[in-house]
């Protein structure tokens, strides 16, 4: 289960970011930002090697449990949001209840 889920635009700003414990929210924002560097490293490491078009999941940035299924669900929900004709690329993802519900199902409940 996740404590924070974020969707980042290609210009490196967040389209959607949500975390469960409300204190230390800034900590998660920083973490997401630093992880962007790791993502860049991984992508440039793939480089000339055969890039499997379907395997967009880069794997774990830091070694912990496997979250492939979760990322796939997240990506599918994201593509549905993108396909909404009234959603413009670069908008914050704020009116999609289905996306919110999907994220809620992935976040751990911390009381």
């Amino acid at each position, binding site marked *: 289960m996740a404590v924070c889920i974020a969707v980042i635009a290609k210009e490196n700003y967040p389209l959607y970011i949500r975390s469960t414990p409300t204190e230390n929210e800034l900590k998660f924002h920083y973490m997401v930002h630093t992880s962007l560097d790791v993502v860049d490293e991984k992508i440039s490491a793939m480089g000339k090697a055969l890039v499997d078009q379907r395997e967009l999941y880069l794997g774990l940035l830091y070694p912990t449990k496997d979250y492939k299924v979760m990322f796939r669900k997240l990506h599918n929900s994201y593509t*549905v949001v993108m*396909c*909404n*004709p*009234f959603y413009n690329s670069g908008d914050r993802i704020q*009116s*999609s*209840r*289905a996306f919110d519900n999907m994220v809620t199902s992935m976040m751990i409940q911390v009381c």
Partner: protein
Amino acid sequence: MSHPAHRRPEYHKINKDLFVLTYGALVAQLCKDYEKDEDVNQYLDKMGYGIGTRLVEDFLARSCVGRCHSYSEIMDIIAQVAFKMYLGITPSVTCNNSSRNEFSLILDKNPLVEFVEELPAGRSSLCYCNLLCGIIRGALEMVHLAADVTFLQDRLKGDSVTEIGITFLKKRDEKKYRRKK
């Protein structure tokens, strides 16, 4: 669907997502072009009318339906043959009045709205699928049946179902039915 020998052979399929995205782009562009929902609805209906007058020929060539003898037979063919052929869904038909000229199509699923969760803010009277109403109206008119076709209920507007109302208008003798849509 089976393809008996006397039907037209070609039946090219396209990707459903491409079709749904194209329709969405059409509606989104109309929304950018026209401020009022009524204008967008009207233009969708007009476009649909143009499509319907042409689509009916394709339908009659492909489906080989026989002569219809009542409005309810026509409704059954619209729901079970035409909708199935073009959108892959089979809405159910209800008759709304005793004189049997007002009917409804209840759409349980609607592939056109697959990616639209709800209408955008400020567009609460938009009939997103109004193209369908125009198509049905245009098709019926080409077989000499005048009808009013509108959305009576719409899931996108918060209703529990999507319902298209078709009211056949009496233009000629009750007895004279022509070959349907």
